[in-house]
């Protein structure tokens, strides 16, 4: 799902840049990370996961481009 009118999925968003206006309550001391992050993620591991996903889809697109070149 895309977030608000950004047209981006949360996995595609840069928490620092795209949520500059957001109060980021998950960063407050004592905040329960699991209210915001599912599967045991926190902001750090979630960011790493998103970057990894992005690079993987990038690789897949490259591979596809490579294969279609020879079709």
């Amino acid at each position, binding site marked *: *799902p895309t*977030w608000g009118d950004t047209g981006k*999925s*949360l*996995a595609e968003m840069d928490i620092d840049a795209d*949520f500059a206006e*957001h109060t*980021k*309550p*998950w960063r407050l001391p004592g*905040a329960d990370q*699991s*209210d*915001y*992050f*599912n*599967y045991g*993620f926190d902001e750090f591991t*979630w960011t790493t*996961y998103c970057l990894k996903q992005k690079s993987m889809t990038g690789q897949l697109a490259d591979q596809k481009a490579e294969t279609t070149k020879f079709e």
Partner: protein
Amino acid sequence: LYLHIDPDFKRPPCPHFERGFCPLGPRCANRHVKMEKICPFYIAGFCPNGKQCKEGHHAKFVDDLPPPEPKIVK
């Protein structure tokens, strides 16, 4: 005037049902609080709205729950 008190009202919510599924269904000793949907952002992994979210419930997948208890029928 009789004040009707729903006996269900006193029972605590069932954590299994809150998670998504309870095999005891109507036989469960705890209250099954029906909710419409899980937040799609939370399912994706992250939703910045936390408890205030209007997109759906942030259902935590707790995996060390005690087994559900059946209702005692008198």
